[in-house]
Each structure stands twice: as C-alpha cells, then as structure tokens.
C-alpha cells in the first residue's frame, strides 16, 4: 500500500507517531491550513456587514463555503446549511429551536441505543421539559438493528426520530433509510447524525431521508470549531432563533426585533468564516482523493486490524466480522487489561488510540462492557502502521505483568 498522502500532512510527516484516533478527530492537510491562512492573510474582516472590499471578499468566501457544503451533502438550497461549532451544537440547536416548540406531553422521541451522548442529552432535556417520552431502538451485540425493532418503536405518536449513520464505537452503519422511512410514515421528523459517516462515505440528505442532518468539520480534516446543521427549508422557516444577538436580525427596537432571513437568523454573532473556508477546502481535498479510494484503503486497514486483534492472545474486537462494516473503526479489549492501561502502554510506543466509553455509555452498558479501546483509521494511514500497532498490542499483557 503506497502512501501518497502523508506528504500533505505535516504532523504525520516523520512517521514517528501512528495516529489511530481518527474517529475522535482527523489531521489537517496543508491544503486546508493554507486556505485558512489565505483567508486570514488576504481578506480577514467581519463578513456580512462590511461595506469595503475585504469584508465583501470575506463574505463571498464564507458564502462560497456554504454553497460547497450544500453541494457536498445534496441540499437543494444554500439557506438550508447553517454553520455551527460542531455536531453537538447543531443537535442542541434542533432541540431548542424545533423540538421544544413542537413536542408536547405524551409525544414520542425515538433514538437508538448506539447514539453518542450529544445525540442523547438534548433529547433527555426536551423530554423533561415537554413531557415527551424518550424511547430507544435496541441493537444486537454486533450493533445490528432489526426491522421488527424499528416498527415496534417508531409507532404513531412518534414526533421525532434521531439516529447516527455510523456508530463511533462499533463502526457499523445503521439502517438509516429504513428508520427515516418508517419515521416519515408515522409523521415524525428525522435527525441524522452524520459525524462519523461524512468523512468516510458519500452522504446525501435526500437519499438518507434526513429532515435534519448534522456533522463536524474537524472529523473530515477541517479545523475544529466549524460544524454544520442541514435543515429542510420548510422546517427552518418556522423555527425560532437559537442564539440571539448580532448579525441575526433585520431590525431591533427597544422591546422587539425582526429576525434576519435564512440562514443568518441561525448564525448569531461573528461567524467562524476562516473555519468555514477551511471546511470547504477539506471537502475539495476529500473529493479529490475520492470516496472509493478512502473506502478501499480503510477496508484494507480495518481488515488487517481485525485479523491482527484475532491473532493477539486474550484480545477480542467488537462489532461486525465483516471489515466492510466497520467505518474504519476497531473497538477492542485485551482480557485483564483496562483500556486506559492499554492506551498508556501504546502511547509509550508513539501509537495514539482512544480508550474509555467514547461518549456512548448507554451502548457500553447495553453491550455489557465497562469500556473499550478503539483504534480508528483514515485513508492516510497505511499497512506498516497497522503492522506496528499489532506488534505493540502483542506486548501489552507482558507490560502489565502477565506471564503470557
């Protein structure tokens, strides 16, 4: 597996570190940092309000980024793209600006047990404030969700259905289309958390049946602090603002205000324009490489990781046996070794992995796991790294005092 990509990533350049925590955040190529630098060095100024050339140019670059994102996920209108800080903020925006106004006592909110905490806690809040009932679609031990479970949980009276597209722990893809189709049949609004899918596979809001869709820029090589909320225009037009302040108004009087049109109504305060420009550059970079290449490399690497973990005594991985259904993620445990200790030992070998509950405690409880270690790859990782990782893994029990 030749690696033509590392030259684009200064942080990976000297091969000292093996970065296998891509599900947490990805690395940034020069093309992205350069786009951010150009924004700052050539045209930095406050977008949207300026009457001089720099601000006009800053506005243009910011709005071009919005257009790029809309095209990337198949949104019909640029106004359907709201820039936020990250997926978490996007989900909270939906909770505060849509759910609190549209749900009442007895309505059902249905989510899956695989969700990330960011797609659980806002709905717990909405449930407590409105009296709506929060219910979970359960999964089997490999993360699979049955048709029967979808039909059993998404029943008339369900007003909101939220699911992630790809699990950040097991890496499996959820049956999003089945879930959103069933949701629409009973008249519910759908939220798709695409944080873990957008970096790895083509995402189209219409094909997914997403009324709302969220993702974070930093997982697909954009800077931290820029995220996206996609919302159908028909929903956005009837939603109240999330944050109030500058840039989101048409006019303000002492005791009232008229909101700005979309999308500015949901982007209060000075925006992260450089971040949005970085996100657009990241999308360009990713589409240049192509999702076919991304998938091919990730499947090959995950296949090596899963085979490797199988070969390590006392180790087991979680999720599907098929490397194609792992989203670049291998969650695992080594018997007798707490994941934090595994991560600490691997750190001394300059290997970066995640350990803990990965912000998915309900899923860990459901699977009967206290915590897991997680190696997650991206297209810029390669076979030699996977091999070094497995070699290090074989030594972990020894370092923790076991004789075998």
């Amino acid at each position, binding site marked *: 597996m030749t690696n033509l990509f590392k030259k684009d990533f200064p942080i990976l350049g000297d091969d000292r570190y093996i970065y296998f925590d891509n599900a947490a955040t990805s690395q940034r190529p020069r093309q992205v940092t350069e786009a951010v630098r150009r924004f700052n060095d050539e045209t930095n100024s406050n977008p949207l309000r300026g009457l001089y050339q720099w601000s006009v140019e800053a506005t243009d670059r910011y709005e071009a980024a919005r257009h790029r994102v809309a095209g990337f996920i198949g949104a019909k209108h640029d106004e359907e793209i709201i820039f936020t800080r990250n997926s978490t903020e996007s989900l909270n925006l939906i909770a505060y600006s849509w759910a609190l106004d549209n749900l009442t006592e007895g309505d059902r909110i249905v989510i899956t047990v695989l969700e990330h905490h960011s797609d659980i806690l806002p709905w717990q809040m909405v449930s407590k404030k409105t009296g709506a009932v929060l219910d979970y679609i359960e999964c089997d031990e490999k993360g699979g969700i049955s048709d029967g479970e979808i039909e059993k949980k998404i029943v008339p009276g369900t007003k909101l259905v939220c699911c992630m597209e790809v699990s950040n722990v097991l890496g499996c893809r959820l049956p999003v289309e089945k879930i959103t189709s069933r949701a629409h049949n009973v008249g519910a609004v759908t939220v798709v958390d695409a944080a873990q899918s957008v970096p790895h596979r083509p995402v189209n809001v219409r094909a997914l049946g997403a009324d709302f869709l969220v993702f974070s820029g930093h997982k697909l090589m954009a800077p931290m602090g820029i995220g996206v909320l996609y919302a159908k225009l028909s929903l956005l037009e009837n939603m109240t603002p999330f944050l109030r302040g500058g840039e989101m108004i048409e006019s303000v009087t002492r005791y009232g205000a008229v909101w700005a049109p979309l999308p500015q109504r949901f982007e209060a305060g000075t925006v992260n324009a450089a971040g949005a420009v970085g996100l657009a550059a990241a999308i360009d970079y990713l589409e240049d490489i192509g999702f076919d290449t991304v998938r091919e490399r990730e499947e090959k690497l995950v296949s090596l990781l899963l085979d490797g973990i199988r070969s390590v005594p006392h180790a087991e991985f979680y999720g599907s046996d098929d490397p194609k259904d792992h989203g670049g993620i291998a969650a695992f445990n080594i018997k007798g070794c*707490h994941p934090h200790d595994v*991560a600490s*030992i691997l750190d*001394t070998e300059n290997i970066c992995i995640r350990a803990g509950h990965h912000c998915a405690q309900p899923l860990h409880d459901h699977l009967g796991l*206290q915590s897991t270690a997680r190696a997650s790859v991206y297209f810029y990782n390669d076979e030699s790294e996977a091999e070094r990782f497995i070699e290090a893994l074989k030594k972990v029990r020894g*370092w*923790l005092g076991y004789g075998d």
Partner: protein
Amino acid sequence: MEIKDIYREIVNEHNLHPSHRGEMENPTKVMAGVNPSCGDKLTLQFRINDDGIIEDAMYTGSGCAVSQASCDMMLDLVIGKTTGEAERLANIFTRMIKGEASPEELEELEESEALEDIAHMPARVKCAVLGWHTMEKLVDGD
C-alpha cells in the same frame, strides 16, 4: 519514571495481587467514587471504631491498573490510622500529584510515593487520585 516503569515496579503487583480488594462484612462507612472521564467506579468500605481508627478497609469496582493499584496502596497505608491521619495523608497525596509536596511528606506516603511521576501524565492523574478523593469524601465530617 516512565509509565512502563511505574507499571513494572509498582502498579502491576498491586493490580494483579491486591491485598484489600473485595467485599467487607459490617463496614461502618461506604463511599462510591467515579472517574467521569472514563466511567471507572470504585467503592470503599471502611470499618472505623469509636476512637476513629480505621480497623479495616476494602474496595470493589472496576478500573484501570493505576486506579486499582493506587487504591490498594492507599489502604495499606491508612489501615490502623485515624480518619484524621488518613485525611492528612490524602492531602499530601493530592499535593504530590500537583508537584507541591516536600520530600519529608513524600516519605510519609511510603509505597504510594512511587506514583509521584504520574503528576507528569495528565491523562492518568484522575486514575491515581480516584481512591484518595473517594476516601476524602468518606472520612469527611468524622
């Protein structure tokens, strides 16, 4: 010390062969602690007599080797001492992790002193202090 040396020289022994792990009959005080960053849980059970002396102590729960070993060493140290003394030692341990304890104070921690270098490993500090902070809550008000 590097983390591998900390494991080899001190942590592994207490983690694999703990002296105080298990359920206690008739504890007088029980306290649970949790490490929010990883969800590790620890429950301390103390039997404290009328004179305020910790006659025996045990712990249960799941956690990484560092948190388990740190707790085991802590109980080695405080059993037979008063709750006031345990509180004072916990204070020294917390300051050791912040790099603020004097060499004389470190000696009082006996084996637990070996965790001094955890102070330079921010990712593992919470593991090392979990048992100590739980004990501080347990003896608080005694």
